[in-house]
């Protein structure tokens, strides 16, 4: 597969770009932030996502979706990133759907129609500490009757407050650090014993701390196999991480573009500041980092779609590289805007904030750098 978008993917890119820019540009984020929107995103927009077919991107055609892959999900996510569009796309249509794809038909029949229609929102209840450490999951799921009882706490559950269903990773055996013994559950958020406490984040998205107090679920809430949750979790994480990398890439690219535009127009010392070599060299370096990140993200997604055994390594490389490049982009962006870069009125600061939140989502640069070392055997 050549490492660029094919014609169909390019068409999807064009329509996603037009849609985000037209329906949900940065002004849309500001509007929702300023009215202190409870869920942090527009349900009406989520419906429009559905009309565009985006919500069913990873759902098989026989189940009413588009039957596309991670490359296509990434194409949409990059435009989401570029426009800072608030939506539950990554958690619901990408990571959530990918987990359900590994589960049974009953669960898919239950949730897919609502997701495709843009009515259902999913959130991922994985992390328990302040950093992403899925290997350290200790929340307990004990057998009870023909089902399970869940007790414990999850945090940084993005869109957890507005979600209809949570994908919860808990321990049915073993202890924190063990690879086996995890089980994934689909838990409806109105189940008794689930309490959620939402917090607005720096990027004005909303994430929840979720408490499970003796929440009982049926055996058919299990996604995949009991004690073998790591297989499903792996799929979920690969989809979520490569997706987050694509969205991060969009944030970095968007931030670079507005910065290039800005320095082409701002005059100091009687010259356009974009003509100063000190700035040119830094922004050209940034351009080169963004191009490398773009190739890396696309490579990871192609490898996932091909089912390559090295896909996981490349996903970590992509999350780390996109993270580094975009962190540089927003930092240089604010700096090159000068004083106005610090103001709320200019958009560049919004990019910096979204980048920070995405860095923490599903593993930051250090986390994935460590994984790369482990996968390479040292």
């Amino acid at each position, binding site marked *: 597969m*050549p490492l660029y978008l094919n014609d169909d993917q390019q068409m999807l890119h064009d329509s996603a770009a037009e849609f985000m820019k037209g329906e949900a540009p940065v002004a849309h984020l500001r509007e929702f932030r300023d009215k202190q929107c409870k869920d942090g995103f527009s349900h009406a927009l989520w419906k429009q996502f559905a009309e565009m077919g985006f919500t069913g991107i990873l759902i098989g055609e026989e189940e009413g979706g588009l039957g596309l892959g991670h490359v296509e999900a990434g194409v949409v996510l990059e435009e989401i990133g570029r426009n800072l569009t608030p939506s539950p796309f990554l958690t619901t249509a990408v990571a959530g759907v990918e987990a359900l794809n590994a589960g049974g038909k009953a669960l898919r029949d239950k949730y897919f129609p609502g997701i495709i229609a843009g009515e259902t929102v999913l959130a991922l209840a994985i992390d328990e500490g302040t950093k992403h450490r899925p290997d350290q999951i200790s929340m307990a799921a004990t057998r009870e009757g023909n089902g399970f009882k869940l007790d414990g706490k999850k945090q940084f559950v993005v869109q957890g407050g507005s979600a209809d269903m949570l994908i919860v990773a808990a321990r049915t055996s073993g202890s924190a650090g063990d690879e086996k013994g995890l089980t994934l559950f689909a838990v409806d958020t109105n189940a008794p014993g689930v309490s959620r406490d939402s917090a607005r984040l720096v990027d004005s998205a909303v994430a929840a701390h979720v408490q499970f107090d003796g929440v009982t679920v049926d055996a058919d809430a299990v996604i995949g196999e009991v004690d073998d949750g790591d297989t499903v979790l792996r799929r979920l994480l690969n989809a979520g991480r490569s997706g987050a990398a694509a969205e991060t890439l969009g944030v970095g690219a968007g931030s670079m573009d507005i910065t290039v535009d800005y320095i082409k127009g701002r005059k100091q010392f009687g010259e356009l500041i*974009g003509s100063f070599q000190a700035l*040119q060299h830094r*922004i*050209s370096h940034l351009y080169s980092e963004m191009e490398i990140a773009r190739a*890396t993200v696309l*490579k990871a997604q192609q490898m996932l779609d091909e089912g390559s055994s090295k896909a996981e390594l490349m996903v970590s490389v992509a999350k780390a590289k996109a993270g580094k490049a975009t962190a540089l982009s927003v930092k240089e962006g604010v700096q090159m805007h000068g004083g106005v870069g610090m103001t709320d009125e200019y958009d560049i600061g919004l990019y910096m904030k979204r980048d920070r939140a995405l860095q923490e989502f599903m593993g930051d640069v250090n986390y994935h750098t460590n994984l790369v070392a482990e996968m390479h055997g*040292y």
Partner: protein
Amino acid sequence: MSDLETFRAETAAWLEANCPPEMREPMTGEDDAVWGGRNATFKPGQKEWLNIMAAKGWTVPDWPKEYGGGGLSRAEAKILGQEMARLRCRSPLSSFGIWMLGPALLHFGTEAQKKHFLPPIARGEIRWCQGYSEPGSGSDLASLQTSAVDKGDHFVINGQKIWTSYADKADWIFCLTRTDKNEKHKGISFMLFDMTNEGVTTKPIVLISGQSAFCETFFDDVKVPKEYGEGVSSVVYEVNKGWDVAKYLLGHERSMISGGGSEGATSLGAKFADQVGRDAMGRLDDPMLRAQMAEMDIEVLAFRAMAERFGDTFKAGLCHPAQPNMMKYAGTEINKRRHELIMSAGGSEVLEWESDATNGGMTARSWLRTKANSIEGGTSEVMLNVISKQILRLPGA
């Protein structure tokens, strides 16, 4: 099986059967590369490998067959490269003719020039060097002064080049000369001539690596015929239009030098963990070095994806024409950092400059040599200037 899968299987089988075992061992130094030419020297297996590959046209797999190439499609050439890498087959031939002059001739040459010059390049019979830089003209290459004066059926060349890599070992030179003093870019011609011509002399320059693959090259009333045969002009493209050829060739040169960033993409970490030692968890027992190694693994794998994407988009005509400058910049900077890390992981042992244990200080010499990557073929600063102007369209050209 699809045609490409069949091609992959057949290629792998053919390589297995034909690549001599010596050519599947890792290279131990620069002198393991095969440069060909009239005075070529070969180690065991090298000549055999060159000849078998040249016979199939696989020294230049994607050149047309009539010019000594393999006539492979883009996809097939990519598969050949992948299979060679997988089976650790060495490249049969290192050559400025293949990397630089060949692509320029394929693009700008006349049919007669292509038929005359390309097959000997593909077979490794003629070794070429590049006469671009002059003592006063490096980054500002178009200010070059070496003159070529039209004398009817020949030109007379006078001047000096510098940094001519392997000029003392090369058979022919592709040389930029000034044919019009009143124009800067539009007064340059791209000429081909034999280094054994009377009036050509070379003097090696010793580098900080102790190696001296580079020369000062002097031209003292060198007579260059206008034609080497019917239609085989010594000037490529047209007189005074050599800058177009030079720039096109630099694009290829820059992509080639950038390859450093993708070379040896296998992780160094595990190897160094075995040398430095491992902690109770099996990790490289030097957390800072381990972190740096892993960061470098990410940079190298990421750049390798970029190199693949660049190759694919370049061949499909989808990349920005100035993109090779970005590849050159990024690849060479990564390569330099990578060699810093190799030195640091090697510790005191790799400092031995002249000893059998270090194969004559190979690691240290390679480290020093990489410092030229961000200078030769245009410096990193110049690459960034080009990106700023041609890709980002920043003001102040």
